[in-house]
């Protein structure tokens, strides 16, 4: 019961694709408030193929599946999102090449590895108002739960909680990396699209995996700008 099967991972990926495709316009619109409005389309160009290929792709291990996901993203998604998300999935894949099942401790390490990869790739860090501002505290929360031996469901609920709260808190920040840095007044007060995407995805995972959680932020309840 504290284990996450390859089937769970597949379902999480399928849900992620559904979230990205359903919110393509919304994510682009968010990106458009202070930037170039391509975030939704960029992510969707990868997850559309993932959605289509998922039934067929190599599922000999969690790592092999994630590696394939990473490659589809790297091949098809440009902008900042391709390298960031591709690197994240790639690093998580590296730790699970042989695994059919993982525990919370594995998941925590996968997220940690993804974060390191993303930092190295894009040069951003905590406080730069990127999706790292979600991933880093999520990682801490997962670590906490892994140490406590919590259930994946509880960890997921708390991760979604953290994603929503951090998204809210980061609004006040000035972006310092990626597409939205130096937008000055224009970006301060607006959420980071990458952080909104993370929060939406985690909320949709909650729903998919039967984890009860009621989001508060209009970014999650409304999903349109």
């Amino acid at each position, binding site marked *: 019961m504290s284990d996450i099967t390859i089937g769970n991972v597949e379902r999480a990926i399928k849900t992620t694709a559904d979230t990205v495709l359903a919110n393509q316009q919304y994510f682009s619109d968010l990106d458009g408030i*202070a930037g170039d409005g391509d975030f939704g389309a960029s992510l969707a160009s990868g997850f559309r193929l993932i959605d289509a290929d998922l039934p067929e792709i190599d599922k000999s291990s969690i790592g092999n599946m994630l590696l394939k996901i990473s490659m589809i993203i790297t091949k098809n998604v440009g902008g900042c999102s391709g390298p960031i998300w591709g690197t994240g999935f790639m690093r998580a894949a590296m730790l699970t090449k042989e695994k059919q099942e993982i525990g919370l401790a594995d998941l925590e390490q996968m997220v940690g590895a993804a974060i390191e990869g993303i930092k190295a790739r894009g*040069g951003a860090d905590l406080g730069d108002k990127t999706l790292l501002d979600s991933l880093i505290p999520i990682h801490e929360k997962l670590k906490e739960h892994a140490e406590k031996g919590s259930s994946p469901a509880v960890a997921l609920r708390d991760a979604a909680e953290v994603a929503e709260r951090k998204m809210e808190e980061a609004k006040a920040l000035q972006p310092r990396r990626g597409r939205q840095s*130096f937008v000055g007044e224009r970006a301060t007060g607006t959420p980071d699209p990458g952080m909104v995407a993370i929060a939406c995805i985690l909320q949709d995972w909650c729903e998919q995996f039967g984890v009860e959680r009621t989001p508060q932020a209009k970014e999650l309840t409304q999903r349109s700008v």
Partner: protein
Amino acid sequence: MRKFVNNPNDFVPEMMAGVAAANPNLLEHQPEFQLIKRKDRPVAGKVSVVQGSGSGHEPAHAMAVGPGMLDGAVQGAVFAAPPVDACYECIKQLASDAGVLVLINNYQGDRMNWDMAVEMAQAEGVNVKSFIIDDDVAVKDSSYTIGRRGVAGNFFVIKACGAAADLGKSLDEVLEVAKKVNGQVRTMGVALSSCIPPVKGTPIFDIAVDEMEVGVGIHGEPGRRRDKTKPANEILDEMFEAVSGDGPFSKGDRVAVMVNGLGGTPISELYVLYNRAARRCEEAGYTIVRNYVGEYCTSLEMAGASLTLLKLDDELEKMLDAPAEVAARIF
């Protein structure tokens, strides 16, 4: 949408197919990678010069492929850097024994995708180096960028590197030329309107008819400030002072001047600006050796313009003088 577009998702592939169709002897289009390459490249002994970035800046980048200019270019979706794989293919397919120089405009997405592609190609033994162009004086860090952005000055780096490569210079020598041009070129732009990426279908930012964005980026990123519009000469003066005051320019210099349209501004207005620029250069004691008035690096149909100054010396003058031809031509 006031645009000639079919399915918006096909916009970039169709445009690139059009460029290849218009240059059937010279160019080849590979839709899998949105790659435009010279059919007769690579050639032994000549460094290949390549570039690639998001679409929407035409005639940069794919339309700048041609003799004396780029050997190949990849483009991503509008305003989105091309994916790693496309960058990698571009390098691989253009790799000659003399090597490949990748000219990257300084945007986070472009850097990341090209960096990965360069690493991948190097791992396979390709002799490839990259260079970051950052000529925009408007802001230090910006959306998409740590450090300055790469904008219209890009043209001069391509032109000089293309000429240097044609002269048979080595990869390191061509890289030195890139460094030199980038060190001596400065640009700043002003937007009078937004633009409409086909997939988005609406303007990427709001700006009133009587407002301008001073120091705008080529993806509509904010610049130094939003202000009320002013007479053309006053706008040019502000651009001139920003550019001239930042670069290594001094009285007696020989310079190249570019007034670049951002896509929606008619060429008549660009010449009104050039008229003032010529005057300002004269007053500053700069001799204009070459001038460039037209569209070189755009933001779709954005109304606006940028001013670029490049300090010249004998070597660079020769490079700018060298023969060149691109897909987007007049005759």
